């Protein structure tokens, strides 16, 4: 029996949007989601470590990250909806079986998310209202850090299991009663899981480094010059550490777990340029951070924005690459481009109009915030 027999492709309802549209919004949504997700994934751990082992500026940096974290988490959850929506639109025959096989663990992400999210609030309010902070509030920060790491592991499990169709049968037979899934499977036997989880953490560290630089320039005007000078150097160190981590875990992932066929595709004429750019891309923000770290003056808003933009490109390339690897891995089992499509044009246009109007309203709100005098601005923003 081949793994394909476990995939149902007989849906009578076609794709409601062109494949390129699904792919575009899935990749765009994932790119947007990565920014806040990386900040809670690596940023909270870093902030908690800095709060204990950091110097004065390190503790200040930790506080800044954690005060911002409630808003970061809110945006991360919100942005995460987009790729999850489009993954279900396009890849339902793979996504649902994979998550059902690990149902209890998949559901536990929601259960873990609630205390993790509230823990971030408890810690942030503790920072704003108390000095020294109560022990239980500090503990809430650590619990949040731990829970977000566990959630990352579970997410990687679900999405790697989606690609590991060949492993479904064994998981199913180990964890079932009368053929019904018990939902207690994890994709830990799949070697791809571990480097994927780790390389995401490395990439998350780079985003955290870039964010510290952006924050010190854009939102930390009331901090001392010494803090901002420290922050730009620290941002570069975090970024450097993240790049090394990313490259090590990425090498393990690519050279240790990819099939020869996949390597040939990804490094060949078709996609070699994209793969090369994805690997090299972190060098851009790293060099920019290195450059501003060597200068005596402040980073400056425009250079900070450039660093942020460069990191966004890094994440975008990674998202595109990730999507491509996903396609090539599942191609023997499921071909999205071969699915019947019945495009819902008028709802699509209605969405795009709402989207543009919505962005306009958000842009107006942000412009009003930008007009506030500097001393009136909230540190939380």
């Amino acid at each position, binding site marked *: 029996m081949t793994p394909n027999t476990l995939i149902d492709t007989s849906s009578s309802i076609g794709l*409601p949007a062109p494949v390129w549209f699904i792919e575009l919004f899935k990749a765009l949504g994932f790119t947007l989601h990565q920014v806040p997700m990386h900040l809670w994934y690596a940023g909270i751990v870093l902030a908690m470590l800095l709060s204990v082992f950091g110097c004065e500026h390190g503790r200040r940096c930790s506080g800044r990250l954690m005060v911002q974290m409630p808003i970061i988490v809110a945006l991360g*959850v919100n942005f995460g909806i987009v790729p999850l929506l489009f993954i279900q639109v396009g890849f339902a025959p793979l996504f649902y079986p994979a998550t059902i096989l690990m149902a209890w663990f998949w*559901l536990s992400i929601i259960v873990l998310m609630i205390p993790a999210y509230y823990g971030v609030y408890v810690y942030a309010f503790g920072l704003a209202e108390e000095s020294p902070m109560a022990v239980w509030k500090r503990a809430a920060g650590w619990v949040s850090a731990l829970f977000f790491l566990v959630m990352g592991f579970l997410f990687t499990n679900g999405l790697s299991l989606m690609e590991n169709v060949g492993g479904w049968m064994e998981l199913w037979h180990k964890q079932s009663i009368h053929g*019904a899934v018990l939902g207690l499977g994890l994709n830990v036997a799949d070697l791809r899981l571990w480097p994927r989880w780790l390389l995401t953490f490395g990439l998350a560290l780079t985003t955290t480094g870039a964010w510290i630089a952006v924050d010190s320039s854009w939102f930390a005007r009331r901090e001392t010059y010494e803090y901002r000078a420290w922050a730009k150097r620290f941002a570069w160190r975090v970024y450097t550490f993240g790049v090394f981590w990313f490259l090590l875990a990425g090498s393990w992932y690519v050279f240790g777990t990819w099939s020869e066929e996949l390597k040939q595709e990804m490094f060949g004429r078709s996609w070699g340029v994209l793969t090369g750019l994805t690997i090299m891309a972190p060098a851009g923000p790293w060099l920019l951070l290195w450059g501003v770290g060597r200068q005596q003056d402040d980073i400056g808003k425009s250079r900070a924005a450039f660093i942020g933009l460069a990191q966004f490109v890094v994440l975008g390339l990674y998202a595109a690459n990730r999507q491509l690897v996903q396609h090539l891995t599942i191609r023997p089992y499921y071909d999205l481009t071969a699915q019947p499509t019945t495009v*819902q044009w008028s709802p699509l246009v209605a969405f795009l109009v709402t989207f543009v109007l919505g962005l306009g309203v958000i842009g107006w709100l942000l412009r009003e915030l930008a007009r506030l005098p500097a001393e009136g601005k*909230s540190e939380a923003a």
Partner: protein
Amino acid sequence: MHYPWWYVPQATAPMLIAAISVIHVLISHYAVGGGLFLAVETTHAYRTENRDYLAYLKRHSRFFVLLTIVMGAITGVGIWWTIGLASPLATQVLIRTFVFGWAIEYVFFLLEIVSAFVFYYYWDRLPRRVHLASVWIYGLSAWASLVIIAAITAFMLDPGTWPVNRCFWAALMNRQSLPQIVARTGGSLLLSSLYVYLHAAITIRDQKVHSLVESRATRPALAGILMVAAGGALWFVNLPGSAQSALIAAPVLNVFMGLLFLTAGIVVFLLFLGPCLNPGWTAGPGFAASLFLFGIIAFSTGEFIREAVRKPYILYNVVLGNQIFPEEVARFREKGYLQSGVWTRAYVVKSHPEAIINGRVDTKKLLDLPREERTRIGGVIFQHHCNDCHATSLGYAPVAPLVQGWSPRMIRSLVTDLEHVRFTMPPWSGNDDEAELLTDYLTSIAPARPAGMLPEKIQK
């Protein structure tokens, strides 16, 4: 079955949806009604230059953001998570049909988050005009989210002409949409007032401010009651015939309907007795908590009823409770349930390859297996065909007590005539051999008839 089935002992997987949904609706409706309340009341407080009231509204906003942005958002995602695990086929249909509905709703959700943070975090810092704009953007976005979600949940009970024309707009503007939008908007206003009473009772010490909050919160509560009544009546009138019959015929729904009317009546009575006749009573946390408690019981009961009347469908006339399309039943009967289900077929291929003839499941071969094996395969059919609504021996609507003391002949008759025995059950979707196998399984778990009863003595 197109997807694997998740076995949740006792509760059954779909009951997890109910558990998360109840928590979510109690928060999400407050997110809508509370948003509109804050918009109206902040406008009023600015207009009257009432600083004490503004101070209270700011405190309430903090509670509001902490509850709705965190719990509301996560439990909302939680429902999505759970329906994908417990009802993947129905979820796939909903996602593909309404992807742009969800996407539009997502835009409003994003607007809600941004405007809520601007409203709360920039209180006292923004010009009034912008501050008020932010809360109105929040309130209207939240209500727009409600409209879209209500229309999609209404589709689950009445798909309109969608099964024929597959038109997004026809699906969205079904007969149940308007009643549910009216009822849910009213429910949001009412529920938000109950939240405000409780929050005010616990946090306000100044009697003057409390009186103001109480009188201001009572208006939307009364408006909400009228809208819930009107929407509920419209909902009932527009129910499919089977759903109306289920409300009358199903004992559990009878009880829940009674509970709904009782608790809703108590809420109306307490509102009349308290805020209308005896202003100041809601200052007591006990009274406010009682109102809140009866309100959430009424709300949860109403949601449960709304979900339950769809049986035997998950999506009315679109996806059956046993996770197949109605138009597939004939094929399943002809080719066999085990053969037609992706995961049931894989089970037989793996466990009984001798029953695979020319690549197909030969159910006659399965009947030749030893009793224990037949029972096991009958268990596979039970899990995939029945466990959606029935636990095994204990838990939610367990099947074993339902067939207690039944003979195999009676059980078999039930199996092959499911939809006629109870119109709330899906049609039997297997062949005769599979009916035998399921009968074997049900007979094996059916407890014996309790001893000492009169018919046994008559038989003797």
